[in-house]
């Protein structure tokens, strides 16, 4: 990581490390970097993945990067390392210019969305019909209504747009397992090595756009080495496949807005007469960085494919997966059951070939209208038994909503563990078979109800004597555990009772349960339990436990608290039932 950063020719470092003495005197005075690049994979939904990690920018030995020290970069924007591609990956970028409008499916009339920007109400998006009449995003709402009096208006819903974009990203998982969001209106697909499945890169591009068009979405797709190069092309409305290594040439004539720079930065560049990406890139690097900050340089490098920027996928690629596409959508339970059984067979065959078993399996059902529904099941022990996994899925399949049918079902093993094969039959594996049968039962139960094992714990505080552990863990019982008589049922919420004792510290003589008073025949105790000072708050009171037998024969575990506080009345609780 660090080595790569050292090689990167132009990393403007001013402002990031103000305490370091500046080699160029006052000219490199600390200033906040401008030209931050917005959007792209960094602020994609979800936690940042480790793939996104980048070396810390402020490091002393980065401070004299080759390009900054005087020598002007060669003309034409070509830095010495710019010619060779940084990676052999291929990325497809999708830009959906009318996403907020088209997702609402209002094709019949001119339609626009509006939002509030300070005191003004502005049009944020307009349908094709409305745009043809002269309504455009950024226009004042009053103007738009004056142009088109019968314009149908609705308030914008950015959160809904983001959710829709994420849903669409799940849908594009049918093309490649690596998909990242490029909000607000873009998607980035890593299509390295998948193009041949669709008959080449051109065909892949067409397929994606056609599929989206069938859903009523206008999309512009571009394919290039670097993800940002493809994204810039798509944002600028250029639908093409850039051959490997050609990103810099392809991007150079594009206008600056495609870089998504900050507004004042873009305006400043316009003021200098720099209208295209190539024009900016042709400027001397040092001055550019000094004047506009490192962000602009980084954005330029990423767009021209000189600097690799990994995309952060929406979800990690599955370990193993199988899928099936249908020419005719399927909607009935019988057919879904059949396909799931077939997919499970195929997945388990793959698992057996790799010597592994699945701990977590997910079924993605792609509906015709673009919705993706997911069902996941987990197992306690790694399994590759189609019958067992099928039973787990059978309980969950009813949650699917095959409205108009599915055109694709995909089954993926999300979590996989090594699983050695065991010989079955011959009567040798009876014990093993029983263990597996129990694990399968617990799997089935835990799909629907909570299942756990009680594990002894080293504590004398009754509520902490037993911990809950997973039902698949084995529990060991320490020697001498539970030597004292204890209740067989412990009330989770102790019951407040009234009891009378002969002397203040004596055992109870009369216990009132509900409305009935019971005479106490025998009482054992007290057993004093002090709070655990290393765990409990200091104000927690100690308890005196009595085991009492009532005249009816019932045996109770009574507890007295509050006796040690001065002036306080002791309180009695029923904490459990003794056998």
């Amino acid at each position: 990581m660090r080595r790569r950063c050292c090689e990167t020719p132009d990393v403007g470092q001013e402002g990031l490390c103000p305490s370091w003495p500046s080699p160029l005197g006052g000219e490199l005075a600390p200033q906040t970097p401008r030209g931050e690049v917005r959007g792209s994979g960094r602020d994609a939904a979800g936690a940042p993945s480790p793939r996104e990690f980048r070396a810390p920018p402020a490091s002393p030995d980065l401070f004299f990067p080759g390009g900054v020290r005087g020598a002007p970069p060669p003309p034409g924007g070509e830095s010495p390392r710019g010619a060779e591609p940084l990676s052999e990956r291929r990325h497809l970028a999708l830009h959906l210019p009318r996403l907020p409008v088209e997702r609402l499916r209002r094709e019949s009339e001119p339609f626009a969305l509006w939002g509030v920007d300070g005191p003004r109400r502005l049009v944020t998006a307009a349908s094709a019909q409305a745009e043809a009449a002269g309504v455009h995003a950024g226009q004042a709402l009053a103007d738009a209504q004056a142009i088109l009096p019968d314009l149908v208006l609705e308030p914008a819903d950015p959160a809904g747009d983001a959710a829709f974009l994420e849903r669409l990203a799940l849908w594009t998982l049918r093309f490649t397992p690596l998909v990242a969001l490029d909000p607000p209106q873009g998607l980035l697909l890593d299509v390295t090595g998948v193009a041949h499945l669709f008959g080449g890169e051109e065909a892949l591009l067409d397929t994606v756009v056609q599929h989206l068009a069938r859903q009523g979405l206008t999309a512009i797709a571009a394919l290039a080495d670097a993800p940002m190069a493809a994204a810039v092309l798509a944002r600028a409305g250029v639908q093409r496949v850039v051959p490997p290594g050609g990103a810099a040439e392809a991007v150079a004539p594009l206008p600056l807005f495609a870089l998504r720079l900050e507004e004042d930065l873009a305006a400043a560049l316009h003021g200098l007469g720099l209208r295209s990406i190539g024009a900016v890139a042709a400027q001397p690097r040092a001055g550019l960085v000094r004047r506009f900050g490192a962000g602009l340089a980084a954005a330029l490098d990423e767009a021209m494919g000189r600097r690799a920027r990994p995309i952060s996928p929406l979800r990690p690629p599955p370990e193993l997966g199988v899928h099936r596409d249908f020419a005719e959508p399927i909607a009935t339970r019988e057919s879904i059951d059949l396909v799931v059984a077939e997919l499970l067979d195929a997945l388990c065959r793959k698992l057996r070939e790799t010597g592994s078993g699945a701990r977590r399996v997910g079924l993605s059902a792609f509906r015709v209208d673009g919705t993706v529904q997911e069902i996941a099941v987990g197992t306690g022990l790694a399994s590759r038994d189609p019958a067992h996994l099928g039973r787990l899925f059978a309980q969950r399949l009813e949650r699917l909503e095959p409205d108009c049918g599915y055109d694709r079902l995909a089954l993926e093993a999300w979590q996989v563990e090594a699983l050695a094969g065991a010989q079955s039959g011959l009567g040798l594996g009876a014990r093993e078979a029983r263990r597996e049968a129990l694990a399968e039962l617990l799997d089935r139960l835990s799909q629907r109800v909570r299942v756990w094992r009680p594990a002894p714990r080293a504590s004398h505080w009754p509520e902490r004597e037993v911990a809950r552990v997973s039902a698949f863990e084995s529990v060991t019982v320490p020697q001498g555990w539970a030597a004292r008589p204890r209740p067989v049922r412990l009330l989770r919420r102790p019951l407040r009772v009234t009891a009378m004792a002969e002397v203040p510290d004596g055992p109870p003589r009369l216990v009132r349960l509900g409305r009935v008073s019971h005479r106490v025949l025998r009482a054992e105790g007290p057993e004093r339990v002090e709070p655990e000072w290393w765990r409990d708050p200091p104000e927690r009171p100690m308890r005196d436990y009595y085991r009492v037998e009532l005249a009816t024969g019932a045996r109770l575990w009574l507890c007295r608290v509050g006796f040690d506080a001065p002036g306080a009345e002791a309180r009695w609780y029923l904490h459990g039932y003794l056998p």
Partner: protein
Amino acid sequence: MSPSTMSSRPDPNHPDPTPDPSPDPPPGHALDRPALLAALRARIARLDRSGAALEARGDTALPLSPAIDAALPWGGLPRAALHEILAAEPGAAAGFAALLLARAAGPVLWIAPDPDAWPPGLARFGLSPAALVLVRAPRPQDALWAMEECLRCPAIAAALLMAPELDLTTARRLQLAAEAGGALGLLLRADTEAPAPTAALTRWRVGSAAGDSTSAHDLGDPRWKLELLRCRGGKPATWHATWRAGPGTLATDEEPAAPARRRRASA
């Protein structure tokens, strides 16, 4: 030995198969023959299956105590069946259930809306926490489903369900599941004055009895009043039993408890 010993007892090695409610077929109905054959085949398969499950386990009935075993037609409490326990006293009934679960020797599932089984107390009856799995099923239909799944599983020794009163169909379903799987099924529920008929093989009411300790500061061993209210093929009977934790045995009083010492558990 016990007052309720039966004069003639069926062979304990052949548990009484559940009588099938299907009536005898009317002769000469050729159209019904396939259905009839299928039903008979299913019945034979079921009998075979429960038999095989029991054979695999080796023993068919859990011993309780000599006196109680002698009164039960199976020479003990049979596995592969459903038994109902009415809890006249919650502690005593849970203790008795724990004793049965422990004697089943194997993985045990305790299903309840909010399982408050307390392993430190259950361990005194020989039920180790290593064998116990707790299942929380707040909804009744989930609890019944879980119980049925457990009973059908050949890998478990026993399952206990804490539930309100079950109707006949549900109990019958659980009974059939237990027959198929070979596990011991227990239904633990609160006592009611007039319990409805049940499909379970036996029904017990467990209450507590006054201890035999002479000191006012020592509770002594747990003492229970065990009432066998219903037993298929056997007679109802009542015992007073003491659980001796040291040797791990359930000792019944030789004589019926004297009326003076007898304290009826409040139902």
